[in-house]
């Protein structure tokens, strides 16, 4: 059965309390009652003793004066009957006098063989205290039966019970109501938490639990909120990753189709057309170039994936050597495009992977050369300050708009399709650079203005 925690607490607490309360009240009542009965019994006992002594004395006198013993008994009986006391005198089981209303009482008493001890007997719905007293020789061995109706105690007990019941009932209701509200109020944060959990479980990760007070519930709520935030963050990251992956796959499909179309088309052309020697060579060249493009894409993809998935091995490297090597490798290309390469690199030590950093600088300088139009100048500078090293590659080429800058590190992004394809790019260079700088905890920043040029700065923190 589904039952709320607070309701369970409520029912159990209420039940336990009511049992204790009622048992306590009734135990107390009963104790009080039996105490008063006891004290009343001892009162009766001394009263009976007093009556017996007084009768014994009077009887002795009546006997001396030859008076009528029966009259004495009657006068005693009638006198005490007024005080709600019944008396009977017996000798040898023969009733000499009785003010008892019911003879049955005497026979009951006889049957029970009552001696001096105090007994309570219930007859016809009335309760009596019975005492018997047997006189000595000088009072002719009478037995005097004493009975006092104590039905008053019964009604007193009944009214006591009624009072206690009413009290207990009132207390119970007050308790039930107040406990209900107190527990409901106390468990409200828990209920709130449960409702929020349901909402979150349904997929709304932006919901928060309200934190009230300083108790365990508020701490739980805080922890819960933290957990939800964490989950939300991770989901966002995962979604972003998935989206980027999807975009990468979409772009990849597109990037692969173009060279594949060319390769397929030229091969088909060679197969089907009666080609001249010149056409044959041209077609073969297209096939080779497009195949190279595919190879280039696959290599760069592998590289980005490799860096993403592997820890890099770092060693101490000279910044100047790295940059000089990169410039040397691109010298020929720069000359062909009539681009002036200026290398102002100063020397400093840097921690990193030599192959990856080499690739990073080569890519950046290569991009700068590609961006140049007429009278191109590519300038390489370094700023070395304590533990920080900044490497700046600046060109005076065609530049980029702000919108283009946002996308340049995305795989397969090209700011100008035709031109960079002519330059032989796969659209992966800067994506690779981003991976390399990320893996070195370096920061790569671009600033650019259309038709004025682009400046790329890579900030390293050695150590």
């Amino acid at each position, binding site marked *: 059965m589904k039952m709320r925690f607070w309701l369970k607490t409520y029912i159990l607490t209420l039940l336990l309390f009511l049992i204790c309360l009622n048992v306590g009240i009734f135990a107390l009542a009963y104790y009080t009652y039996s105490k008063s009965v006891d004290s009343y019994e001892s009162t009766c006992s001394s009263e009976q003793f007093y009556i017996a002594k007084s009768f014994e004395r009077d009887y002795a006198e009546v006997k001396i004066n030859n008076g009528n013993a029966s009259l004495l008994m009657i006068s005693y009986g009638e006198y005490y009957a007024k005080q709600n006391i019944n008396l009977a005198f017996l000798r040898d089981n023969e009733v000499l006098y009785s003010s008892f209303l019911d003879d049955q009482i005497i026979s009951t008493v006889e049957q029970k063989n009552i001696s001096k001890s105090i007994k309570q007997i219930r007859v016809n719905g009335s309760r009596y205290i019975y005492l018997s007293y047997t006189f000595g020789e000088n009072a002719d061995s009478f037995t005097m039966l004493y009975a006092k109706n104590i039905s008053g105690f019964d009604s007193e007990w009944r009214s006591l019970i009624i009072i206690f019941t009413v009290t207990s009932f009132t207390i119970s209701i007050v308790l039930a109501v107040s406990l209900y509200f107190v527990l409901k109020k106390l468990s409200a944060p828990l209920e709130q938490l449960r409702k929020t959990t349901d909402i979150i479980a349904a997929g709304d990760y932006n919901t928060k639990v309200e934190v009230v007070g300083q108790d365990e519930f508020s701490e739980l709520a805080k922890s819960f909120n933290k957990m939800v935030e964490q989950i939300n963050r991770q989901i966002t990251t995962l979604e972003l990753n998935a989206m980027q992956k999807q975009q990468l796959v979409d772009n990849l*499909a*597109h990037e692969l*189709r*173009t*060279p*594949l*179309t*060319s390769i*397929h*088309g*030229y091969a*088909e*052309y060679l*197969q*089907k*057309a*009666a080609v001249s020697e010149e*056409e044959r060579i*041209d077609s073969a060249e*297209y096939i080779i*170039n*497009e195949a190279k493009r595919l190879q280039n894409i696959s290599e760069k993809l592998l590289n980005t994936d490799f860096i993403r998935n592997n820890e890099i091995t770092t060693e101490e490297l000279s910044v100047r050597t790295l940059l000089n090597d990169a410039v040397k490798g691109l010298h020929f290309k720069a000359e062909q495009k009539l681009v002036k390469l200026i290398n102002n690199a100063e020397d400093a030590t840097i921690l990193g992977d030599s192959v990856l950093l080499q690739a990073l600088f080569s890519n950046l300088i290569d991009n700068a050369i590609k961006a140049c139009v007429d009278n191109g100048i590519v300038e390489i500078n370094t700023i070395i300050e304590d533990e920080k090293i900044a490497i700046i590659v600046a060109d005076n080429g065609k530049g980029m708009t702000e919108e283009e800058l946002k996308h340049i590190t995305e795989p397969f992004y090209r700011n*100008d*399709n*035709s*031109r960079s*394809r*002519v330059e032989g790019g796969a659209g992966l260079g800067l994506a690779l650079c981003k991976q390399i700088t990320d893996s070195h905890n370096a920061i790569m920043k671009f600033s650019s203005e259309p038709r004025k040029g682009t400046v790329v700065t890579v900030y390293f923190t050695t150590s």
Partner: protein
Amino acid sequence: MAKVLIAEDDPAINNLIFINLKLVGHECIQVFDGDLAIEAAVIEHFDLIVLDIMLPKQSGFEVIKQINNTPVIFVTAKGNLNDKLKGLSLGADDYIVKPFEILELVARVEAVLRRTSNVSDSFSFDDISVDFKSKQVFKSFIEVILTPKEFALLETLIINRNLALSREKLIFLVWDYNYEGETRTVDVHIQKLRNKLGLENRIKTVYKMGYRLEL
């Protein structure tokens, strides 16, 4: 003979379309971005534009809005339905997805040209003249009677002239079914065409491929 504008930014693919359309007898102009495509279409009249969607400067979708009444075939790597629908709703006459086969490109170009322009319904070479509408063939002004299949075969060879067609492809194009095994029928019909029209030197047997009408 039609005049075709090829607007495609990838030089390899642009050239590929160019050489193939030239091969089957079309006159082609090549442009590499959207601006140049519009410029060319304004200056000259074209029977057809083969238009890439992902063009630099202005996309193919923008280009098609700015040219009047010239038939357009979109060529793109984007194969998704939305692009296809968008292209066709903008008035494109057909749509071809990379990577495509040469024969498919040629067939689509031919189909669009037949449907949209008043390209002549006849074709002549040497002393032979073919009327596609009346399905008549004349050699030195004397009608040569061909069976319907022979005529269809000749038409297919003319449309794909200078391109080798495999026997299987010919069966598919002429007899209109996919046929893997027995291709003797093709050989027999080719032989009959050669004999009836004296095309022994024009219809060449290509090693490992099939037949090619060389003009």
